[in-house]
């Protein structure tokens, strides 16, 4: 159907742009490839977990940085975690901010850390909205009876 075809095209374009802009990287493609009949909602599940986890981490980070005496090891630990999960799902830009964040932690640079946290929040919100948009597109395709195109 034309509708399906159009949706599919949209999907492909959108995914490509996300990759080009660095929001998502190849790891996300890997995730999509992992999805199969035995695990049909794999990507959505993993990403949902990621959202939950990220929000917790961001809160923890905010709290940690607000302490009178900042425990940089703890902060670094959270960031490390965030970096790990972000890179696992392919949220490249988020992972990159984490790298900078860790450097500031090592230097015990509070200002740098606070700035990074802000950046982290922004990138996270961005990637979250983009992924949600992507999932919506997928849903539309499926509802219209089509197949989600495989990205290479």
């Amino acid at each position, binding site marked *: 159907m034309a509708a399906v075809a159009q949706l599919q095209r949209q999907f492909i374009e959108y995914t490509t742009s996300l990759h080009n802009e660095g929001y998502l990287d190849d*790891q996300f493609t*890997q*995730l999509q*490839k*992992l999805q*199969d009949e*035995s*695990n049909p909602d*794999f990507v959505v*599940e*993993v990403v949902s*977990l*990621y959202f939950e*986890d990220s929000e917790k981490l961001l809160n923890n980070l905010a709290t940690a940085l607000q302490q009178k005496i900042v425990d940089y090891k703890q902060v670094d*630990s959270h960031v*490390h*975690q965030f*970096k*790990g*999960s972000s*890179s*696992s*799902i*392919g949220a490249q830009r988020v992972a990159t901010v984490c790298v900078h964040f860790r450097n500031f932690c090592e230097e015990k640079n509070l200002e740098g850390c606070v700035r990074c946290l802000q950046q982290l929040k922004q990138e996270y919100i961005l990637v979250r909205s983009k992924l949600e948009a992507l999932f919506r597109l997928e849903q539309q395709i499926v509802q219209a009876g089509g197949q989600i195109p495989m990205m290479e």
Partner: protein
Amino acid sequence: MTTGSSFGSGSGSLGCKQETGVMDQFPAGLRVLVVDDDVICLKILEQMLRRCSYHVTTCSQASAALNLLRERKRCFDVVLSDVHMPDMDGFKLLELVGLEMDLPVIMMSADGRTNLVLRGIRHGACDYLIKPIREEQLKNIWQHVVRKKWNENKEHEHSGSVDDKDRHKRGGDDNDYASSVNEGGEGALPSHRKKRNNKEDDDGELETDEPGGSKKARVVWSVELHQQFVNAVNQLGIDKAVPKRILELMNVPGLTRENVASHLQKFRLYLKRLSGVAQGVGPSSFCGSMEQNSKLASYGRFEIQALAASGQIPPQTLVALHAELLGQPTANVGLPVIDHQPLMQPSKCMQVDHVMSYGQTLPSNITKQVPQSVIEDVHSGLGAWHSNNMVGGYGQFGGQNGHNMLFGMLQSQSQSQSQSQQVQKQSITVQPSRLVVPAQSSANFQAVNNGVPVNPSHQTTSFNRSSVINYGVGQRSETEMKMTGCAVDVENRIGGQGSVANHSIKEMGEKQISFGESVHVLDQGPLRNLGFVGKKSSIPSRFAGYEAESPTHNLNYADNNGERRIKQEPNIDFLENSKAGGTAVTHRVSQNDLMSVYSE
């Protein structure tokens, strides 16, 4: 593909089943345990591993993973662990797993800095993967399992152990191993390891007759023999100990320079490993005077006691202690391990006490009872856990003697299953093939860990490290706890991670030092091994009793066709087990032990 199981904080009692059918196509069916506090990574890895046709179990807490491994040692082939975890340092988990279970461990981290990777290697990681991990990287992890098995086999061979075939035969009772492993306690004992390494058929005798017609005379490094070796080394000084001189000092007829040389090599590796953990330097942190090489020899009882008193027994100390213990056959061996909780002190150091007690008790048992089969079992090399089962009393003796002793004890103690159950608790992680060198503290551990398949009797070595852990033998719960703590402690010390130790101890939640693997498993295990031994005929009837029980283990050797071959080749076992498809257990076991578990 089987579905993985997830273990949060140690919940879940998943039997380790192998899906029949997948085992036919090795490496399909490889049983992987993934430990990572990041649930997202865990989920992704799980899916990737499933796609590789592996059998996956996930764990988000290191302590839970450790417990799981202790309970079901035979249920896993390889462990994948993250480095950065809140409840326990990944490297510590790595060490513990290597010591206690002798499983290949692959580390993972988003942090790929060279120093961390190096640390991983130093702690014994088979590989270090940098996140994000791709599916392709996971496809080949089976190589580590096979390689390890092969290497252990090779070492085993070189060390002149008894013909594995014999051992395998004895292990015929393990058929049920796989199937029972999951049952509460009937689990098959990972005696495979023992079997494989069971070099010694006799306690302390040199065996030169090889049924299989092997070319080398196999030396059974019994406890006594090992003690003699250790004494000789001590006398000469580890740095100056050369095989020729050791041989002279030992003055054991029939022992060749080659036998000593290979044994020495293992011993050295063990020592190195122990000290290497502490960043390459003899852990002087312990008592300040332990230098890995030289100290071993000089470690005297007093020192050990002093250490014990101080509550911090470094691994070396334990080794030394162990050695001391070995030399003193006074103890009341008769002490059943199971109920033995003697030294469990809340502090970490308790181990020392245990060691002592073990040492003492063992001698008597060992000498008398350690039938070859026992030894074999003990040595299965990959895990000391056999010993747990086997020797009720063994539990006490973590060290190498323990193994042998365990067997002996086991046998003497319980011909019945129930006994074995107890034994299980003891779960001494004697690693069958390991060189158990009680005397040399850390070195011993190393040896053990290196899988020096010296002799079952040498299990002691493994003892050191694992023994520490094993001390807990007795009652699983408490003792184990302590042990774990201690072990951890010791380990930490060695590795210079004192803080970690404490840390780990705490974290360890239930400490089951499951050396012996959970009860159910134990039962079968040791008994089985014993049984195996008997099969061969070297083992007296007491083993016979066990044979009956180890149903699941399909003892490789026994009647299973072509079991014999299993013994030596790890990969074969692996494959065999796979084929057996039956119980996961078997599959696992075979890896290590070759001998023991043969999936039917």
